[in-house]
């Protein structure tokens, strides 16, 4: 991303050949106009095309011991469930996770790309990149592809020198820092459970159970979410997968079938 340096230019050379070193000083700012018939509305069209997507439930929250990240594993194409076993929590590096919501290919590719950038930063600077820095790099990339039709609603969760970090980044280039986020079509349901049960001082087990229950309730009500509820924990030593439970089994764990009293019983009548 090139900073606008028009305010800081030195006098441009009056004559002489243009080479890349000198042009940085003297080039006037300019940009190409997009090649479209509907100049005012083409961006809206692109967004509408991908609007129905993000059929998923992912959530993450910061608590005393670190960051808890959880997601479902269903992929749907309209009303067709294309997979029940999608990995929606992407491992960027041993201490940073990203969640997937929106276009699966977009999320997977760009998270992988972010992992590359983080590694290059580490090699160049001899220190790990912070969660702030990683999320900023990601947001800048997505901003530069704004309007093209990427669909990415992701949370970057990690542990760096300043402690636990959590950012929400989306395909419009928006970036938010926060303590609790949930993304996807099932997020309203997940927020209901998450916001109700959240406390800052929870133990790792309590936080994991809260995350698991929130995902379960979202999968219960939202048709586009389901499959397996995965829960990851990010602590000072990096991330660790805590559990991956099928939501069907979770249902019977939370709401076991109670034997009920029989009101009327059908009995076979003999003869007559």
């Amino acid at each position, binding site marked *: 991303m090139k900073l606008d340096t028009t305010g800081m230019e030195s006098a441009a050379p009056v004559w002489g050949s243009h080479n890349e*070193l000198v042009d940085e000083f003297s080039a006037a700012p300019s940009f190409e106009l997009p090649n479209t018939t509907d100049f005012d509305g083409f961006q809206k069209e692109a967004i509408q095309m991908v609007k129905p997507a993000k059929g998923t439930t992912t959530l993450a929250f910061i608590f005393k011991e670190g960051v808890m990240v959880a997601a479902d594993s269903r992929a749907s194409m309209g009303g067709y469930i294309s997979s029940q076993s999608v990995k929606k929590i992407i491992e960027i590096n041993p201490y940073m996770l990203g969640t997937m919501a929106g276009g699966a290919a977009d999320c997977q590719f760009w998270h992988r790309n972010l992992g590359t950038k983080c590694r290059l930063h580490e090699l160049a600077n001899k220190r790990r990149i912070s969660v*702030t*820095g990683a999320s900023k790099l990601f947001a800048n990339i997505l901003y530069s592809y704004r309007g093209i039709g990427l669909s990415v609603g992701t949370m970057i969760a990690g542990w760096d020198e300043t402690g636990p970090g959590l950012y929400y980044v989306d395909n419009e280039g928006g970036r938010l820092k926060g303590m609790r986020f949930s993304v996807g079509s099932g997020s309203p349901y997940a927020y209901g459970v998450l916001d109700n049960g959240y406390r800052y001082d929870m133990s790792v087990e309590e936080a994991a159970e809260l995350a698991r229950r929130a995902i379960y309730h979202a999968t219960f009500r939202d048709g586009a979410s389901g499959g397996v509820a995965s829960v990851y924990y990010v602590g000072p030593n990096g991330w660790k997968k805590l559990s991956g439970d099928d939501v069907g089994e979770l249902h019977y764990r939370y709401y076991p079938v109670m034997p009920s009293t029989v009101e009327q019983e059908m009995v076979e009548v003999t003869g007559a």
Partner: protein
Amino acid sequence: MARYDRAITVFSPDGHLFQVEYALEAVRKGNAAVGVRGTDIVVLGVEKKSAVKLQDSRSVRKIVSLDDHIALACAGLKADARVLINRARIECQSHRLTVEEPVTVEYITRYIAGLQQKYTQSGGVRPFGLSTLVVGFDPYTGVPSLYQTDPSGTFSAWKANATGRNSNSMREFLEKNYKETSGHETIKLAIRALLEVVESGGKNIEVATMTKEHGLRQLEESEIDAIVAEIEAEKAAAEAAKKALAAPKET
């Protein structure tokens, strides 16, 4: 040999890049500059040309800040320095913008050196005619650093170094007298090195210190004069002590 110093992109048969070496000559003609790293402070000192009467001396600051925690002094072509410093300042802010963190001293030194190297490998441009001394504190670990770059684009870290006019004598002095110091002692060491090659007095020296808490601070002429007086007094005392030791032998 004359044919190999026109365009710098050409190596000479014995492996020299003459334009780069000529740039180093330009540095050797520039004013003396010294940098010393202490445990909690870094000091930069620069030779000031004798004050031209009508010139406003405050407009020729030779020690500049690149960011809150990084400062730079240089020897060589001052006009080239202005351009390089501007690019470095932009890069400091650009880094803050893209990763929301301040640069480390090593990063910005690497950037400046990279810039200097680029101009040794392009057509139609000449190298920057200056060597820089970059000082600062690492924003996370709080460790002070001193780096030097030169027109060829190499850089390295130093405990103490000098560049510009008579830099060899200053470096020899520093090699002989360097030890781990902090605070006031570090300032004295830097000024002592500079006094080896510069006329003494606050009028001819510009000194600035960088600490973690207070950032860059330019010393006032009066403060420099006071320290110079301190140094002269110590020198006189040492001389007197030496004479006292030598005296008994002369009988």
